């Protein structure tokens, strides 16, 4: 579903990723871990085409980074649900509209939007915050809105960048159960985290990045 072939990414003088080769199968869950600045977010950005490789090639389903054009990027992104490390919620729209946006860009008919959005909010225990605006939510609540938005459109891939960074262990465990559920429905999931608790005893593959390169690949 996702392959990296000899991918390097440079920012001016910084090397964010060096010669990465890996592949993620359809329906698989993998973890990407490593210290801050190791290149985890950059790796995810290459998958959703917010960045492009300087060398090598990224393939996501049928999309290839070296055959990209302006019009196939939006459709690539509609196949992916993203939990951004910096949330990217719209402060001037309420929780409902923020989550609904993921459906609206997918042209889901307006009469189906409501049920899906409310389901997704119930899943992250935020049904009671439907009408709140993001600036009035706690960090953990905002993070859960982002998670709801990422999964509501039933994407074939979910990318989660530090999805439990602001959550207490119990809530974090709840979120991981959600990921497990949608993975069971066949969704491919990539989770970037420095929190070892998330992948302990999962049996999933864990790529440890260090200093822009894959330092090890192990089982959680």
């Amino acid at each position, binding site marked *: 579903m996702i392959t990296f072939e000899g991918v390097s990414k440079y920012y001016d003088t910084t090397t964010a990723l060096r010669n990465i080769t890996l592949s993620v199968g359809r329906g698989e869950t993998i973890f990407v871990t490593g210290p801050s600045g190791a290149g985890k977010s950059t790796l995810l950005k290459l998958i959703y085409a917010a960045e492009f490789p300087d060398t090598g090639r990224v393939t996501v389903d049928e999309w290839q980074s070296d055959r*990209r054009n*302006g019009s196939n*990027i939006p459709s*690539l992104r509609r196949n992916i649900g993203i939990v951004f490390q910096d949330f990217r*919620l*719209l402060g001037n729209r309420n929780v409902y509209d923020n989550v609904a946006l993921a459906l609206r*860009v997918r042209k889901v008919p307006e009469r189906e939007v409501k049920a899906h959005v409310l389901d997704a909010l119930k899943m992250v225990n935020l049904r009671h915050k439907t009408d709140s605006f993001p600036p009035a939510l706690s960090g953990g609540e905002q993070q859960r809105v982002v998670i709801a938005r990422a999964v509501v459109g039933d994407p074939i891939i979910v990318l989660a960048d530090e999805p439990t960074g602001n959550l207490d262990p119990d809530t974090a465990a709840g979120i991981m159960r959600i990921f497990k559920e949608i993975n069971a429905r066949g969704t491919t999931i990539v989770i970037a985290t420095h929190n070892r608790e998330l992948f302990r005893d999962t049996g999933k593959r864990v790529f440890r990045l260090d200093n822009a390169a894959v330092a090890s690949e192990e089982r959680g």
Partner: protein
Amino acid sequence: MPYPLKIALQSLWREKWINLLSMLTIAMGLLVISLVFSSLYNVGLFTRTLPEKFFIVAYLKDGLAENEIQKIVASIKASGPVEKVTYISKDEALRELKQSLKDAEYIVGGLDENPLNTLFPVSLKREAVGPEKVKELAGSLRKMNGIDDVQYGEKFLLSIDSVRTGMETIGLILMTVMISGVIFICYSTVKILFYRRKEEIETLKLLGATKTFIRTPFVIEGSVIGMAGGILSFAIALAFYFSVFSKLSATVPLMKTVVFPFDMFLLLPAVGLFLGVTGSLIALGRIRFE
């Protein structure tokens, strides 16, 4: 309600003050442009009728026979830029003079002999009324057999000419300055609207929105603001027409000749709409995904 429309209306309401400001800006801009335009239009009309008031007068020598006079008329008519030649015999000229002197008839009353010449007021084709051409024509008339003298208002002629070129230049400069000013103001207002939503657009792109999805609410907003501005300027123009202009032209004689270009003002809402849509498209610029 369709989603893009809802978003557009929401954001129109949420940003009502800056939107109101943009609307007023567009309305004022359109008003200024139409004011300049209607003044130019009127000045144009006025200067175009000026040449009709201009003519050359050719005086004949005394004692010419009727057929000689006809010959002269024919040859004047044959000179290029002549529009019309009128023939005023010396008796007619005297009668007119007497009439215009009505109360002071004693001035001419005692004359036993008509002191006036037979004369031809020669009016010219509109495009021929210019210093060079008139001088040339007057010269050639003067050389004709039987013509005693030729006269024309040289000062009037020169002023027509300078009024016309002056107005054309001023009008052109004014139009350019005004239009670029209004375009710039519209552009910067919309650019402000754009920067206020830059982050939102970035997020929409990351969520997989297409260009059309991103643009549509923006364009709806722009067209509402632009059209509202156009309608407002139209309303103000109309109010001005009925409260000031129509009264002035009823009382001040000079204002009677001023034309209020109604058709042009009817265009204002459409022009506003056009400005709003192009303004928002320009401000959005190219939406790039890479």
